[in-house]
């Protein structure tokens, strides 16, 4: 069955009554904040004082699973709920107690920036959270990271943090320890669940993993731990034993959780009067009895096993439950193929089962602490699925499962997961057409199209990773990429480039904080050419790129020591974790170069367009002097309406116009060169740059004054990647793609280009083929990541004013999809204003 039956899979587009009912119930369900994990987690910690963090965390995570209430919804075929609510957000307060207390003081778990309805929380749960948070808030230890940073760079270093000037942006960069999130508050005390899902333990079954761990423990007993030279690169024997014991606890807890589901399904089957449903429940019981403990025997069991393991990795995360699902078409295809060939499974039922799986994945809710709210929309968990891609033999691995995944996603129209396609020259154009059709039906910028060649080449160029492994890469997070053989943990450090540019325009002085942060690089008013302005910016960037690298050395060293002690993570990476006796993120991996520093940046478009305005208006046309322009932006254009309009209408990147594009390309390439000048301070290898595209661009904007591209004070900067300034790419998608392809993607991962097409652009077979050609051409020209949004402006405007009628409307914001009505109003307006390429 090597030939894909596109028509048959495409024909599975009608949602079954089962899925319709499940989806409707979910759509209408209230979001609850559930405090059960809080009770389990804190209770466990109170009992385990003094034990190694890995063991403590493992025991607490296991207790969360043991105590989890179960729910099997009527009609569902894949089970494994976060809690007993259709939409319940599990939280425990240890990592951000202050933020929880702030919400409780406000009286609700509202969604501050999205202005949509607050999540509900029972009085009882509210009380439990309050008690837990009050316990943890007293235990917030001295912030060791900041203490070390102040020791090295002086107290002013903290001014660069996100909660001050925001030259550095990202999860860990907080001057105020109370504002820390995601476990940075007290890592040495509680450890941190940051397991990354992998199919591998599902494939072999947890029983097998348990056996391997036990064998290792036995070897320790009979042969000793062998703690020899070089001693300090190895774990101490007790650390290793604690890790191995943690793995056993983790395996047991997931197996027990599955068995409890088996019990529940059996009981429900006994009382079930509808014969069809009775049969289904019996099958569910048998699935849960078998996986993830054992290796799956068929497609249904494989999906169920993935569900348990992926959900378990989400369960142990405090707030955000981010975990990628990886290359599911490759993982599932052997089971699918065998079942279909044996006549046990039809493609139609395979689609329905996958839809059930997507439903479960989408049901997972999360609640973000207030400081994180603006970075991403609530409930965005990034369970990315990657499909297709060449293997080391040069063959495209697209299979029928790739189509099934796309078909199911287009039918269910969920905002997540995003499906990433590794587009390559061996790919059947018929498959891409199938994908574009799914894109059109789904509407929310899903699937996304990636350059398979570039994605692989970046890994090959390390020169130290076996070729076959380099071909086995997938996406994770918002526009991160990792190899299946190596965990990716970076991707949370960003330079706020427009902020650095603003400093350059002010000789290193921050007008907002009224403080000199950067070096003196000259007064804008005295500058005689655009190149001089650019040069000043590069000097500022060089200074801050150096500083963030040194910051990372300290920060990451302390994190390696203190964090990421999830034994479940060792289960996912059992193949190397057991051998090294270490968690992969602490060095238990064959390829530490994959655990390297990812330096993110955003805002190249804003800087390039600003420089273009300066070149055009100050130096070419000489309509204004630099002094006048500086005055205008410092006054946020007040009294400078004409200059403001001139700046808005100056040439802009994204129109295939060399005047603007040449500056964009130069700034982008120089940015890369400056940031890559220093190697990763931990491993010494070349580090990875990425243009993370989560909606942090909103956040970045809040610390910025007006910019010469016409942007006004505090407005969002442009969204991530290589997209053009919203509303100013007026020359159509080919021009935008041409502009973007001029830039060298090679040094970056995650440089997304958002293109908006209307339905009219693809309403015939012929036009679909043209859209396929558009994708192929962009990839061929060296573009890395393309996303196509499909909708019309009227629809969005209506959704802005009548959100109740547009609950299903999805949009693509930066690197992920979101429900349009859940977005902050500023972002809604931005998307409405984005050019609609409807010709």
């Amino acid at each position, binding site marked *: 069955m090597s030939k894909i039956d596109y028509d048959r899979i495409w024909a599975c587009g009608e949602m079954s009554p089962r899925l319709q009912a499940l989806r409707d119930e979910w759509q209408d369900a209230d979001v609850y904040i559930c405090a059960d994990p809080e009770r389990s987690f804190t209770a466990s910690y109170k009992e385990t004082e003094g034990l190694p963090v890995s063991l403590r965390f493992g025991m607490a995570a296991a207790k969360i699973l043991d105590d989890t209430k179960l729910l099997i919804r009527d009609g569902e075929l894949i089970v494994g709920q976060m809690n007993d609510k259709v939409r319940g957000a599990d939280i425990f307060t240890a990592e951000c107690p202050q933020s929880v207390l702030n919400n409780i003081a406000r009286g609700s778990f509202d969604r501050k920036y999205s202005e949509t309805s607050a999540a509900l929380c029972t009085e009882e749960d509210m009380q439990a959270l309050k008690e837990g948070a009050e316990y943890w808030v007293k235990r917030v230890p001295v912030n060791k990271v900041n203490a070390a940073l102040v020791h090295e760079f002086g107290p002013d270093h903290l001014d660069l943090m996100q909660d001050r000037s925001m030259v550095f942006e990202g999860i860990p960069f907080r001057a105020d320890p109370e504002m820390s999130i995601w476990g940075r508050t007290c890592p040495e005390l509680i450890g941190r669940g940051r397991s990354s899902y992998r199919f591998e333990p599902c494939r072999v079954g947890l029983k097998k993993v348990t056996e391997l761990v036990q064998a290792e423990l036995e070897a320790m007993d009979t042969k000793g731990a062998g703690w020899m030279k070089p001693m300090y690169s190895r774990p101490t024997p007790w650390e290793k034993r604690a890790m191995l014991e943690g793995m056993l606890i983790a395996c047991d807890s997931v197996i027990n959780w599955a068995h409890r589901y088996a019990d529940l399904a059996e009981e429900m089957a006994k009382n079930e009067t509808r014969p069809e449903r009775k049969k289904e429940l019996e099958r569910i019981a048998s699935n849960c009895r078998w996986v993830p403990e054992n290796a799956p025997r068929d497609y249904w069991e494989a999906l169920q096993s993935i569900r348990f393991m992926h959900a378990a990795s989400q369960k142990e995360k405090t707030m955000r439950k981010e975990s990628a699902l990886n290359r599911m078409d490759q993982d599932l295809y052997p089971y699918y193929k065998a079942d279909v060939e044996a006549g046990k499974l039809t493609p139609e039922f395979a689609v329905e089962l996958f839809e059930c799986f997507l439903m479960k994945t989408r049901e997972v809710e999360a609640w973000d602490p207030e400081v994180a709210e603006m970075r991403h929309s609530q409930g965005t968990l990034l369970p990315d699925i990657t499909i297709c891609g060449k293997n080391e033999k040069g063959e495209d691995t697209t299979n029928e499962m790739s189509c099934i995944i796309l078909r199911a996603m287009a039918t269910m129209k969920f905002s997540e997961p995003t499906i990433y396609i590794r587009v390559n020259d061996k790919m059947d154009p018929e498959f891409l057409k199938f994908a574009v059709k799914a894109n059109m039906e789904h509407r929310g910028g899903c699937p996304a199209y990636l350059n398979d060649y570039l994605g692989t080449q970046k890994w090959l160029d390390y020169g130290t990773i076996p070729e076959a492994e380099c071909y086995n890469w997938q996406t994770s997070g918002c526009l991160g990429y990792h190899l299946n053989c190596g965990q990716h943990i970076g991707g949370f450090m960003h330079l706020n480039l427009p902020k650095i540019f603003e400093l350059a325009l002010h000789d290193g002085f921050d007008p907002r904080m009224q403080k000199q942060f950067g070096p003196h690089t000259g007064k804008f008013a005295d500058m005689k050419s655009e190149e001089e302005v650019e040069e000043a910016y590069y000097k500022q960037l060089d200074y801050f790129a150096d500083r963030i690298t040194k910051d990372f050395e300290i920060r990451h060293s302390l994190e390696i020591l203190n964090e990421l002690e999830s034994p479940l993570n060792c289960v996912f990476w059992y193949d190397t974790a057991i051998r090294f006796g270490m968690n992969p993120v602490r060095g238990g991996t064959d390829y530490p170069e994959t655990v390297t520093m990812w330096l993110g940046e955003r805002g190249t478009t804003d800087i390039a367009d600003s420089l273009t305005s300066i070149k055009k208006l100050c130096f070419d046309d000489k309509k204004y002097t630099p002094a006048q322009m500086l005055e205008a932006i410092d006054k946020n254009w007040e009294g400078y*309406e004409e200059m403001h309009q001139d700046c808005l209408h100056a040439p802009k990147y994204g129109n295939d116009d060399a005047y603007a594009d040449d500056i964009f390309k130069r700034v982008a390439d120089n940015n890369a060169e400056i940031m890559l000048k220093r190697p990763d301070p931990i491993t010494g290898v070349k580090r990875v740059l990425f243009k993370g595209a989560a909606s942090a661009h909103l956040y970045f904007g809040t610390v910025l004054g007006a910019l010469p591209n016409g942007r006004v004070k505090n407005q969002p900067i442009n969204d991530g990647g290589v997209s053009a300034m919203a509303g100013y790419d007026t*020359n*159509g998608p*080919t021009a935008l793609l041409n502009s973007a392809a001029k830039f060298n993607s090679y040094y970056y991962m995650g440089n997304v280009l958002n293109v908006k097409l209307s339905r009219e*652009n693809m309403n015939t077979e*012929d036009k679909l083929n*043209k859209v396929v*050609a*558009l994708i192929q051409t962009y990839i061929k020209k060296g573009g890395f990541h393309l996303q196509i949004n499909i909708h019309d402006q009227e629809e969005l405007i209506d959704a802005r004013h009548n959100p109740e009628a547009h609950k299903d409307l999805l949009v693509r914001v930066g690197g992920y999809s979101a429900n349009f009505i859940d977005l902050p109003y500023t972002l809604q307006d931005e998307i409405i204003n984005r050019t609609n*390429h409807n010709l």
Partner: protein
Amino acid sequence: MMSDKNVIFDIQKFSMDDGPGIRTIVFLKGCPLKCPWCANPESQSIEPEIGHHYTLCQECGKCAALCPQHAITMIGGDKKLHIDRDKCVVCGTCVKNCIYRALSIYGRVETVDNIYEEVNKDRDYYDVTGGGVTLSGGELLAQPDFAAAILTKCKDEGINTCVETTGYATPENFAKILPYVDIFLYDMKSLDDAVHQKWTGVPLEPILRNLDTAMASPSEVVIRLPLIPGVNDYEENLFATRDKLLELNKIKPVRIEILPYHNYGEGKYVMTHRDYTLKDMKRHTPEQLAAVCKIFEDAGIECVLHKS
């Protein structure tokens, strides 16, 4: 040597509807026909003219105050201002001084090289999709030397050429472009000369004569029928068109494309201060359009319905 004014009013990328593949359309300004359903009213006169983007206008009155000809009056209401087109000499003072970019000039003189450079930017997309350049208008044959020069340059550089034409020109002028056209998108509005004259203001005969010339050439010919309610959508005309297509198909394969009437251009009538006379015209229903297509399909003629 060229006597034309070399005026275009737009270059549009990523066109999917005017010829095969992904194309770039170059719109030449000026048209001898006066069809009231015209979707590009700014294309009709070959002279440059001021367009007023009333939605962007802030009614600041700067343009009226600065106009050397005193041609602009602020009138308020939806239209916001009025331009006396008889007084206006298109000097551009108002355009230059409108900080909101609510005023623009339709029509610019352009060189063949500049046009080619712009067209050539999307060559990668033409290569994969079989696309190229399409000359449209206005009526490109109103500037035959200019049109021929653009087509020659593109064809010489290996870019597929297509023209969207009314076919209304002298045989001499038609012959100028003929060797450089790969595909004709040839309008056939009505086969009744009286009807044709009444609605378009020009006779049918030169159009049919040039069509014969195109049919005798190696170029591909596609017939386009802009389907206008009450003008040419009655059976008699559709049957006549069908019979004409059958006749043409004896020479070489010719398909018909039905372009349903739409009023997307109405805003541009306001912007150029023209009256839109078809305000009450109702667009065809999908059923009506299907019935029109069926007339051609039943006769074995390839028929493509454009979606509007």
